[in-house]
């Protein structure tokens, strides 16, 4: 579930408001707010579209575990999904090249050894 929006990093571009498939964020006069966290489907896609790396989604669908995280737990993880997906400024870095094509080979390896 969406856990935090880093108010210092946020540039108020409102991409999260537009791209969240669950309409979790709300535009305001300043930076957007996490208006409907209970509607979050934990798909992490808002992180991909946040070029300011201001958003953090905890993988648990219910907020129990995320509630124990502190900013010092979260800050080092901000932006990792966008980076590892090779989006935007990471697109030329071969370390993060999209190797999704390997998936069928992995399935084959699991099946046939």
């Amino acid at each position, binding site marked *: 579930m969406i856990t935090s929006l880093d108010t210092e990093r946020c540039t108020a571009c409102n991409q999260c408001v537009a791209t969240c*498939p669950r309409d979790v964020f709300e535009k305001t006069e300043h930076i957007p707010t996490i208006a409907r966290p209970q509607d979050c*489907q934990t798909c992490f896609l808002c992180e991909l579209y946040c070029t300011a790396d201001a958003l953090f989604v905890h*993988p648990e*669908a219910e907020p129990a575990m995320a509630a124990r995280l502190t900013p010092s737990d979260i800050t080092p993880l901000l932006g990792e999904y966008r980076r590892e*997906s090779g989006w935007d400024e990471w697109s030329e870095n071969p370390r993060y*090249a999209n190797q999704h094509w390997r998936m*069928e080979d992995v399935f084959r390896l*699991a099946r046939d050894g």
Partner: protein
Amino acid sequence: MTDRVRTYDTDVLIIGGGLAGCWTAISARRAGVRAIVAEKGYCGTSGVAASAGPGHWFVPPEARLREEAIARRMAGAQGLGDARWMERIIDRTYRTLPDIGTHYHYTPDDSGAVRRHALRGPEYLRALREKALAAGAVLLDHSPALQLLGHRDGRVSGAQGVSRQGDGDEWLVRAGAVVLATGGCAFRSHLLGGSNNTGDGLLMAVEAGAALSGMEFSSFFTVAPANTPLSRAMIFSFARYYDTQGREIAKPAAPNDHSAIAVALQGGPVLCDLSATPEIVRRQLPQISPNVTLTFRRLGIDPFTQRFPISLLGEGTIRGVGGVRVTGEDAGTDVPGLYVAGDVASREPVTGPVTGGGAVNAAWALASGCIAAEAAARSALENPLDQRSILEPLGDAGLSTRRDRTNSSTTRSAFANTLSKGPTRPDASASSEVEIVLREEMLSPTRQYFRNADTLAAASARLSAAWGALRDATPPSAGPRERQRFRELAAMTATARWCTASAAARTESLGMHRRTDSSTNGSDVPAYVISGGADTVWTRRQAAGTVS
């Protein structure tokens, strides 16, 4: 409708902007007609493909390869498959999918070849959005459809819904033809990317008079780390599972059958062990599926050295099979002007009673989208909508604006009593009771894996009560989000009723549908279970290969 309604005229309206809806829009534009996509969320991140990694059923046009591919699938389809549909979607997918190369950035494999059929979800859906826009489609984001609109000549001629963002509260599209591409229904199971998949299109289709097929093939569950939506299958292909006493759970006889895990989960936590994952796969994983590695990192689990608890997520009709019955080669339905694409349609023609998995379902989504778009475009050109014609909403379950408090509080009270013997509740509370019923009946792995006449009859009674309560409930507020929420609840409840009724009607086990009260597997004469009806649910068996 209030006066804050934005209205549009178009040739083809596509409801749903995921994998199927985007290809439908692109194909409609290619066929030379105007196209509007009304998407509940955001076209580009919405739908189950966006956070997954769809391969596609992709077979080169060599007669022997295609015959073998089709023969394998026909055998698995156990009499419910249609070789012509298989041939059609293989051919369409092979010819059309490479077009995404204008907007999708492929990384060549180790041999330098580009594998056109393997696309990662977030990048694929982003590319499809850009391609649809470049083709001139109009995208209405955050615009859930609530009702189809009908013309008095019997054709479906548009839809209306609410706008969650922007300057209007409601929208209305008048169209020559409509393609439903709303996806399957996972009953809000926390399936990755599946929360918008609430069966809206199934309800709209049935209200318009269409029939469904194969709704009993909806008992499919996927493993995920406990409490997470991470239903990504690849990494679990190396998994071993242990019950709460530490005993290894036997590997399933059939792939994807997690019924033994379902039984073990009743006794306590089930732990997953991924230590058999080869070293090379561990290294490659972040670049294949970055959302898998980040999930474990954030949970504080090293999945390759530590056992971790798992849960089973219901897939409903997503990796299930059932949906709107396709009545012809044009992806049409029983209703003129109404077409279907992707998971909202029954995929029995290409998978029979077993899951299509990612590859066949993605190929079906793409190809049925192309086929539906072309047929809808022809239909729209042949039946232009008169600007003055009056259109009527074709259904209103969950959208009651009636203020007949006596009537609706009676229904509510009866419903509350059915569930908890509680006092009369406000409608908001009735809706959360419906959510509980849906979760208990449709998302319980053992309930779905082990069906029998008694459990199905009990489920049917509870779901009927839920439907009755929702049918006449008035949302606590008339705001767009509340109206959408009630409509989604009605759609999920209706879908659950069709699944349950169809499961009761198919008294033998077949494919993913398992009856514990029947010793036979399959039947002598392969048959479909057709279903429909909103207030009064009906089913009938129809021998495969016969018409009507």
